[in-house]
């Protein structure tokens, strides 16, 4: 992945400030599609996260909503996620 300065800026500014944000965005779209869910299933979790943590950074809320979605729909267990975080942190 090339540096931020190399990203195309057809819209005049960076779409994602860091690559992980783009990954989180792509994951949400992919998971929703794989599960055959309406986007509203992710969106309402994003709304809940933002309401619960209004001062949190936007993409942090996004990631938390995505984690919530995959756990609620049993794609992963909370334990698996926790173990993986410890392994890669």
């Amino acid at each position, binding site marked *: 992945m090339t540096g931020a300065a190399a*990203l*195309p800026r*057809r*819209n*005049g*500014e960076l*779409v*994602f400030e*860091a690559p*992980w*944000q*783009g*990954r*989180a*965005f*792509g*994951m949400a*779209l*992919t*998971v929703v599609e*794989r599960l055959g869910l309406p*986007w*509203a299933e992710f*969106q309402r979790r*994003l*709304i809940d996260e*933002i*309401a619960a943590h*209004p*001062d949190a*950074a*936007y*993409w*942090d809320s996004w*990631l938390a909503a*995505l*984690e919530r979605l*995959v756990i609620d729909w049993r*794609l*992963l267990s909370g334990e*698996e*996620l926790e173990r*993986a*975080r410890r*392994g*890669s*942190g």
Partner: protein
Amino acid sequence: MSDGHHHPAPISPVEARARALEELLAEKGIVHPDALDAVVTAYERDIGPMNGAQVVVRAWVDPEYKRRLLADGTAAIAELGFGGPEGEHMVVVENTATVHNVVVCTLCSCYPWPVLGLPPTWYKSPAYRARMVREPRVLLREMGLDLPEQVEIRVWDSSAEVRYLVLPEAPPGAERLGEEELASRVSRDAMIGTARL
């Protein structure tokens, strides 16, 4: 004192969480890294306000298209080949000399991706989301758009299913200019409603 090795900066906790999630989902075959790359590229490069600008300009030069656009935004936008996630229920709202439209999502960040791409950071901020419904004229002025009192401001909250696109007023002499020239004048912010052209 350098030991000659490059030590990459430690990644943030949130980035570590994102990576862990992607690894797990990839292991289970739910996401594929190449497909994720393609989604990211699409939204960084191909899907953005240049799409909405084409829609706006078509409406400026073709009154029949404009009529269809205002009657059924989704269908008219699809005529130009744009559609997809977050564009399934499009409503286009027209600015006039006496009416100015502006769009917000008070609860999160809902935004018409197929025509505008992903929203800018300020659109997602708590301040914008709360203040645009409460004090639109003041906030717009702070953002550089000073509207006279006699211009009615209509604020559209995207929190439900509908996604809004503002159709800015055509510049004088638009009918004499080519669509490409006109499109270059249509800013993203004018299609959100935080600017006029």
